[in-house]
């Protein structure tokens, strides 16, 4: 199993969620984060003093999936979240050693 995490632009959340649901992904965890990367923040003036908004609001998704689905999930996110403009975000994939579903105690792929 893998944990696919994706940093995306906030307004793409709904589209991505729908695409993933269509793929059969059964769960997603969403975290609001602030991103710092090639896409630069903006400098604002507040009462005449500078005010750099360095960190841009992003959404981080965490999706645990069984191995066969990984590539499809990556592709689906890439296609749906892309605007082609800088700051579209990243996908990171980690090895997931173990999963438990708290409700039932099931473990492994069944628990996803």
């Amino acid at each position, binding site marked *: 199993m893998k944990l696919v995490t994706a940093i995306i632009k*906030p*307004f*793409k*959340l709904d589209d991505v969620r729908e695409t993933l649901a269509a793929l059969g992904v059964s769960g997603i965890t969403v975290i609001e984060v602030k991103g710092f990367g090639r896409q630069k923040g903006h400098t604002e003036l*507040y009462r005449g003093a500078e*005010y750099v908004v360095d960190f*841009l*609001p992003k959404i981080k998704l965490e999706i645990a999936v069984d191995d066969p689905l990984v590539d499809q999930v990556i592709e689906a996110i890439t296609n749906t979240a892309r605007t082609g403009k800088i700051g579209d975000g990243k996908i990171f994939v980690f090895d997931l050693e173990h999963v438990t579903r708290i409700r039932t105690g099931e473990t492994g792929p069944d628990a996803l």
Partner: protein
Amino acid sequence: MDKLTELAYALDTFYFLLSGALVMWMAAGFAMLEAGLVRAKNTTEILTKNVALFAVACIMYMLMGYNIMYPSDGNGIIPAIDLSFMFGGDHSAEKVLASNGETYYSGMSDFFFQVVFVATAMSIVSGAVAERMKLWAFLLFAVVMTGFIYPVQGYWKWGGGFLEGLGFNDFAGSGVVHLCGASAALAGVLLLGPRKGKYGKDGSINAIPGANMPLAALGTFILWLGWFGFNGGSELKISDVGEANAVAAVFVNTNMAAAGGLTAALITARLLFGKADLTMALNGALAGLVAITAEPLTPIPLAATLIGAVGGLIVVFAIITLDKLRIDDPVGAISVHGVVGMWGLLAVPITNSEASIGAQLIGLGTILSWVFVLSFITWLLIKVIMGIRVSEEEEWEGVDIGECGLEAYPEFVGAKGSAT
């Protein structure tokens, strides 16, 4: 006796000034209501619009509007303008004493009371076009609205123009103020289009919840309080038993209508949606207030409650209907002030035997068409000159950063940039 006349003049002036101060306070009510009902990312901008429109309204009405609306002369349709108010001046004691009771309050207090009314009309507009209209385009419209569009129709009724002559009844402005504001808002909304994401391609209507309910409730309470000045002051005089009773009746009826409107809207929303939708209840209270504004004097308290309740009922359906028509009004201003404003005008003959449904319809139609057409043209011109809508990207990111350079709640995660 002269001292008595002077004292009465003082009391009436004081009553007028305090009424005006209460109406001024309504500007804060609109600001809070709107700030509560928009998303966090558009909050600073709506606040900026609200404070700035008030200032613009005061200045334009001083420069032009007041003289247009209450001209020294006019033919009933076109007022004779002299634009001299900005230089001030007031009634001398001699003139007051010689007037035989005709001149019973300060001219300055009259301006004060009137100027806060025009600000009210303009505040109605800001809510309807919220979250997508450019700040400076909006303020430019405010200049035209408060300096010209509003005063002209105001003259027709309250300045002694042809609507007054026709027997059109509008005690405190269900038409002259509320319908007027809503008509301008409607024209703007039609040209502007709905907020992105409000209506799906598949015909779905998406809710876009407001960010801060306590502000919305506070705003409604402020408006409710201010309305005692709005309607109570519109009696214009308080200094004898009959007038004092009238003002008291207006207070009671204003309050009862709000209570009726709130209750009706809350129950209607509960029946329709299964939940006690607070925003509908708030709109219901305001609807009750708008409904009674055309005639808060003649109804008995029970009737006032019912007139308000009908307003509260109407407003729920109006909001749903406008949404179906894809007329996107984030705060419900067109429904509250426009649709219910019409109800208020048409309800006058129910309790006021001097009013006729015909005159009411003429007044309603005149205000609606004058304001809508003039506003439409104005918005259109502004659209051509500088555009009225922010860019799509700015709308996604929120107009606060784009227009004002600062967020309303910068420290709260998720305040900005959240989806939808």
